[in-house]
């Protein structure tokens, strides 16, 4: 039987506010336990929540970025359950009237294939604290620093049909939230986490199969692997005559498998009801227009512009627009050098290679976009050749020299294009290599092409790489062929 996979994602994005969603405590990551847990975050008696305007603005910006409707009124509800990392015994969330209505995101699969994934809604809520399971005399330690960090939970429709689509969707969301600057998107620190709903159904069947929810998957790779495993598990189960049960599962990256999380857990009853400590949030059109006016160019628009206006390939446009930092670096370099294709090549080639080797992000690049742009400009205008350019890049990377011109000057890498000078070097090489010259002369004309490479190398060496290679090639051929 042919099976079809159906996937929906719930992505939790920690919003990059300075303070918490309902208190004035800092949201900074990695502080001493409970030093950033205020009375509100701890649920101390008498404490009350007050909503952070930035959390609202960020949620709305996301909504606008995914072309979602923003309802005039949204309401916070309480989700009631007991857990040690949930200090008040309820999570303040939005069940019935979320801040962001239905929207959609375009994902890119192959270079040319795109697909729209519908977003059901996105709502604001508070993050929980953390349980630390190291041994404290057989007890668990509770750190509530994270409690109250604003989260935007983005709930997709079950529109994805493969692990690859799910990963592409997650990347698209990541790209949007980082473009907007509403989250640092740091998955390792938990700034972005997702729950994956997976089911399978016979191809052609309309009704959905029973789904399993894989909780808290925290990397793009894990999403793909967790789904791959889960799909296989479900298909095998059904083909062996079994049935998928609706349950929550956990992905174990070490064993590369998902397993059931709650064996004896009874069905939850969260008793959602409107939070009486918070009033309805009312957003007017002027506010929405104001935020709309502040939206940056988003990844999809940038990708289109890179292709249509700068003439980049779909592939290049996709890679370069994936992160806002990368895109901005590329655009600045392009502005300086004026050659989009060259700039794209350099950013994706030499620069990305060097960054990856040293495990740096583009914002930490020792070579600035200005510097790279100028370097490329010198290649484009023929001041240096490609080989020298790589040397200049390395020098700039190592901090030797303020800019490309200074390095070119200091290292004498300026390309030699003076025919006389090149001819003089060629004459010298010919004179110094009589045996090779003789071989060349005696060879069949169709073999000569290969043999000329040796002489080009010698001339380039003699010029310390600065001779224009095309000129060297042409002049050498002329001279050697003229020898009798």
């Amino acid at each position: 039987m042919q099976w079809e996979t159906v996937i929906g994602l719930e992505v939790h994005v920690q919003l990059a506010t300075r303070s918490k969603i309902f208190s004035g405590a800092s949201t900074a990551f990695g502080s001493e336990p409970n030093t950033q847990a205020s009375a509100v975050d701890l649920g101390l008696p008498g404490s009350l929540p007050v909503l952070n305007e930035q959390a609202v603005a960020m949620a709305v910006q996301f909504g606008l970025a995914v072309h979602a409707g923003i309802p005039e009124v949204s309401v916070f509800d309480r989700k009631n359950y007991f857990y040690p990392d949930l200090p008040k015994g309820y999570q303040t969330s939005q069940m019935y009237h979320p801040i962001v209505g239905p929207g959609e995101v375009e994902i890119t699969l192959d270079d040319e294939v795109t697909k729209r994934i519908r977003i059901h809604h996105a709502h604001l809520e508070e993050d929980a604290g953390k349980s630390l399971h190291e041994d404290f005399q057989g007890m668990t330690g509770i750190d509530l620093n994270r409690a109250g960090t604003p989260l935007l939970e983005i709930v997709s429709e079950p529109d994805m049909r493969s692990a690859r689509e799910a990963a592409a969707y997650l990347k698209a969301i990541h790209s949007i939230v980082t473009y907007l600057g509403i989250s640092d998107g740091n998955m390792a620190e938990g700034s972005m986490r997702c729950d994956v709903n997976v089911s399978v159904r016979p191809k052609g069947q309309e009704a959905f199969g029973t789904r399993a929810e894989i909780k808290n998957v925290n990397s793009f790779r894990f999403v793909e692997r967790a789904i791959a495993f889960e799909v296989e598990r479900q298909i095998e189960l059904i083909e062996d005559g079994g049935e998928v049960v609706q349950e929550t599962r956990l992905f174990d990256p070490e064993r590369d498998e998902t397993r059931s999380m709650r064996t004896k857990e009874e069905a939850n009853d969260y008793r959602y009801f409107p939070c009486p400590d918070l009033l309805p949030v009312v957003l007017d059109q002027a506010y929405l227009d104001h935020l709309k006016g502040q939206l940056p160019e988003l990844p999809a628009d940038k990708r289109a512009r890179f292709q249509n206006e700068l003439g980049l390939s779909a592939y290049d446009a996709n890679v370069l627009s994936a992160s806002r930092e990368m895109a901005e670096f590329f655009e600045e370099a392009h502005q300086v050098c004026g050659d989009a294709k060259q700039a794209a090549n350099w950013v994706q080639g030499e620069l990305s290679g060097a960054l990856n080797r040293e495990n740096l992000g583009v914002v930490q690049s020792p070579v600035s976009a200005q510097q790279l742009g100028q370097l490329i400009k010198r290649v484009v205008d023929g001041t240096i050749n490609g080989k020298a350019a790589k040397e200049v890049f390395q020098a700039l990377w190592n901090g030797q020299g303020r800019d490309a011109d200074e390095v070119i000057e200091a290292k004498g890498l300026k390309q030699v294009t003076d025919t006389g000078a090149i001819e003089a070097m060629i004459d010298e090489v010919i004179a110094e290599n009589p045996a090779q010259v003789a071989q060349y002369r005696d060879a069949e004309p169709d073999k000569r092409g290969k043999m000329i490479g040796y002489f080009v190398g010698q001339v380039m060496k003699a010029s310390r790489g600065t001779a224009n290679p095309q000129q060297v090639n042409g002049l050498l051929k002329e001279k050697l062929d003229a020898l009798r």
Partner: protein
Amino acid sequence: MHNQTVTQLAAALKSGELSSREITAHYLQRIERLDGKLNSFISVTAEQALNGAEAADKARAAGDTHALAGIPLALKDIFCTKGVKTSCGSKMLDNFEAPYDATVVEKLSAAHTVSLGKTNMDEFAMGSSNENSHYGPVKNPWDLTAVPGGSSGGSAAAVAAGLVPAALGTDTGGSIRQPAAFCGITGLKPTYGRVSRFGMIAYASSLDQAGPMARSASDCAHLLNVIAGHDVRDSTCATRGVPDYTEQLNAPLSGLKIGLPKEYFGEGLNADVERAVREAVKVYESLGATVREVSLPHTHYAIPAYYVIAPAEASSNLSRYDGVRFGHRCEDPKDLIDLYTRTRAEGFGEEVKRRILIGTHTLSEGFFDAYYIKAQKVRRLIRQDFLDAFEDVDVLMGPAAPTTAFDLGAKKDPVSMYLQDIYTIAVNLAGIPGMSVPAGFVDGRPVGLQILGTHFAEAQLLNVAHQFQQATDWHLQRPALAEENA
């Protein structure tokens, strides 16, 4: 001295006739000597009070013009007070010292009033007799075999007995007005949102409101001047400006339109209480007011709606008492569920458990729409009843409670206790302000006249109450206990 009103004491302080230290010491002595009979205080903070009194005297000498500087007050033990036990009448918080002051406490301190201590109350403000306190019941100063009402029973009894000139209470379904009525004092529940709830331990967040309990409307006006106003720490606190509530006190009442809701004079109302209330209304007529009957057709449904909404909010508000970060924790929990269930079983009393269970049940799957959503719809109808009535009349009047104070232990089943609040509870659902003022006695126990106004009409209510107190002396009557000298 202890039979004087806040207004009188403030004048004596201003003229230098009395010092805050003298006044404070006098009341502290009375508490020490007499509160054994009443049990109206959970904590008495004598040392802090005397220090505060000295500071207030110095401030006055240095030109502090706060009207209430140096006036001793008591706080219902529901208000967080930094470094002082804040128990909320519960074993759960018997060991809890709040790390901050409630906004009203801050405001009272800034005005240089002096807190004598924290008054007894029904546990988590759930009750109408003050018999639900972990610290034992409070007795009514007029008759020690009677309840003082609840949940602000300690504040009401302490003021009535002259242990303190005024106190703060809170009112979620009548918890200021009913004990004020039972103890023969004046109590005001302001409009929801008029006074900050920050630092006031929550029972039912959409209904809770703090207010003054004192010997006269004028005293209540002075206190409301201090505690009312916007607070950035409470999202539900109103932003509108605060008038001087003493300014309108003396406005004449000629032309005042009074409505008597017919539903407040029906079956269940004690005939003697009704007589006293109607006598009071006659006083108003003599002051130039006109009286007409009005109808609040959904009155009957206020208690049912309240006993869905309040327990629902309470069940959630009280989830934070889990033995992890503060408060009671059971001995040697064997696992997490044991920690939770035993801590909460030990820490909460019967009535609190009942309301948590009702609230949990009515919010749970399959019942939410039938109970909670239905109750909220009825809540809107109840509010609309009042808004409609205030189209025709300025204030509404009726009894604050169906009877005078009942005997301790008299109400055995929960529902008959709940029915005590039949005339007060709709007011909280609607969010409007209400007062109870002394209006006579039945068999030696006080009767309270309830006066209701539309949202933010506190100044008018205080005016209406004050004019009554200019024409009558019910509010000047004192129980024998208050006549005893310290």
